[in-house]
């Protein structure tokens, strides 16, 4: 598998100015709800038109045949021009695509034009093929080939890199997801020890771009991961970092990664807490020496902390450990 690029649902488009855009491609099953929604909307339109024209046909003498003709024209128009009109005038979207947050674009990333919308919609019938006869299910049924199997479109989409059906290939279009990609933003860091710890990270430490991405991903996702698992995850990277920064071994891996995130991505003005000043250093050379009756060491940012504190009881300890690690909520 590794011989080619990693398997993913993205397509990279490079503009003539050599700028790259990444799109998430919508495959056949991401597109299926849109197809069903558009089909349902068309059926509702047919039913409404049918009822209206039925009323007209029954109430006005000699208008029955005109009503039938109007209904057939309406049917033809809706069936063939529904997708065409919407996609060419609504930025590559039909109501079904709009609701399922997908849209059609050209393979070079530009919005589709009328010609492309026409070609891809007129070839829709070919994508339904092979159509099978009703005779296959009922012996007495007429030989009308009207049951779609969608096999042609499924095979076409499976073998093309952009999940293109026949109509898409002919028109040079593809369907992409219209949602914004995940951006590691708005991570709230409310634990005051994080800012304190970030102060002790060596000033000459520079993050690589991959490390910055990993730290951002961790900070964004950590609140959704159980505390024990969080510590386990963070410890993978924290071990070499603790060694490099010469921090105490019992420094919380989770807080260390948060401190790195804070240092790299958060401005100091965004975080103000007076308690930060009172926290002692996590550095090995400045660590407090435990006395014989102290157990465990009262480290500010360690894994081995006392259980959650009652603010009304031990005021002095609460200042040293404002929020115990195992109960922290960021």
């Amino acid at each position, binding site marked *: *598998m*590794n*011989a*080619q690029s*990693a*398997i*993913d*649902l*993205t397509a990279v488009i490079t503009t003539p100015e050599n700028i790259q855009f990444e799109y998430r491609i*919508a*495959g*056949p*099953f*991401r597109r*299926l*709800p849109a197809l069903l929604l558009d089909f349902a909307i068309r059926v509702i339109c047919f039913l409404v038109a049918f009822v209206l024209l039925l009323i007209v046909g029954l109430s006005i003498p000699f208008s029955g045949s005109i009503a039938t003709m109007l209904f057939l024209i309406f049917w033809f128009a809706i069936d063939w021009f529904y997708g065409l009109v919407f996609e060419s005038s609504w930025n590559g979207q039909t109501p079904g695509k709009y609701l399922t947050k997908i849209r059609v674009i050209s393979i070079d990333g530009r919005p589709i034009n009328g010609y492309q919308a026409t070609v891809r919609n007129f070839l829709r019938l070919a994508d339904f093929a*092979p*159509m*099978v*006869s009703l*005779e*296959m299910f009922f012996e007495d049924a007429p030989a009308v080939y009207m*049951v779609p*199997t*969608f*096999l042609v479109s*499924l095979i076409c*989409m*499976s*073998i093309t890199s952009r*999940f293109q059906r026949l109509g898409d290939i002919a028109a040079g279009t593809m369907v992409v997801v219209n949602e914004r990609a995940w951006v590691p933003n708005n991570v709230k860091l409310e634990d005051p020890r994080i800012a304190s710890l970030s102060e002790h990270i060596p000033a000459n430490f520079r993050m*690589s771009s*991959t*490390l910055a*991405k*990993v730290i951002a*991903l*961790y900070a964004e*996702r*950590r609140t959704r*991961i159980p505390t024990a*698992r*969080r510590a386990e*995850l*963070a410890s*993978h*990277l924290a*071990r*070499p*970092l603790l*060694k*490099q920064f010469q921090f105490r071994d019992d420094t919380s891996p989770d807080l260390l990664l948060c401190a790195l995130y804070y240092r790299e991505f958060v401005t100091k003005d965004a975080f103000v807490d007076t308690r930060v000043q009172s926290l002692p250093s996590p550095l090995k050379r400045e660590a407090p020496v435990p006395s014989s009756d102290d157990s465990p060491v009262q480290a500010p940012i360690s894994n081995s902390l006392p259980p959650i504190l009652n603010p009304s009881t031990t005021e002095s300890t609460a200042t040293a450990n404002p929020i115990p690690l195992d109960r922290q909520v960021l």
Partner: protein
Amino acid sequence: MQLDRTAITISQRTGTELVDLSLIVLRRNWGLISLHSMLGILPFALINFVLLWPLTQYDTLLMASRDFASSDLFQVRYLCIMTGVILIEAPFALSGLTYFIGQSVFIERPSARSVWMSVWQRMGAMILIVGLLRLSMFVLVPMIFLFADPVFRPEFEVPIYLFLMCGYVFLIRGFRPFATEILLLERCPLVKPKSRPDQLAYSLRSSSIHRSLSGELFGMHIGVSIVEFLTAVSLIMSSMFLIGVLTGTWRWGMWMDLFLFPLIVWCTAIWGTIIRFLLYMNSRIRTEGWEIELRLKAEAQRMEAKS
């Protein structure tokens, strides 16, 4: 091995995206997927063919029957049993495929020998959990009875096949789908070994991965089952259309019962196995932050290599 350079991009995805992704996995690796699937499927397909052959003698069965006047009923019975049997057998038969895909995420093209040796090492646990508790091998027992006496007795067959076996397997696979992945890829032992106290036993690991997502996994299972069913129907109808066009025969023949129908159901099962593996990856990403772990480990490796 660079842990963050995986063959499938490790990120959180929706259900429909996973099904779409499975098509790309199939396209990129169709040769090896076919090979490992065929190696696993072949013995089961042969056994099914031999044991269910008597059920396809519709006219003979009709003549022996006093209660039923149409051979169509016997055909429907055969197709239902064949479908159920294949779907029950699939996790065991396709264990090699599961292992292959799991390894292919990190290692370039493991050889067929290494894949099947690794599966063989876990055969005991696989037989117990997937073969017997999840009925993949146990399903052969009622088939032997059917082979010995193929007369249709709906009062026994319908409850046994439809409600007990298929229903049980459908439910257990809906709520706890990742048995094969836990046994083969994570290599969890059935009992916690005394020598390695940190190693999780199968039951604990299964609980931890399935518990928090069981409702969602079951919903996904139903959705994927519907998609697989519709795809199988589409394939069957298309096959009939193509054969009708090419040969002029539009009727469902015996070759369809014996070869094409089982082949299509097995193909659907292969696709289902790939979807299940992707769902397993997605579940680990969501509940355990697996993609973060891989990236953190990779970054740690790079830092240690530098220092």
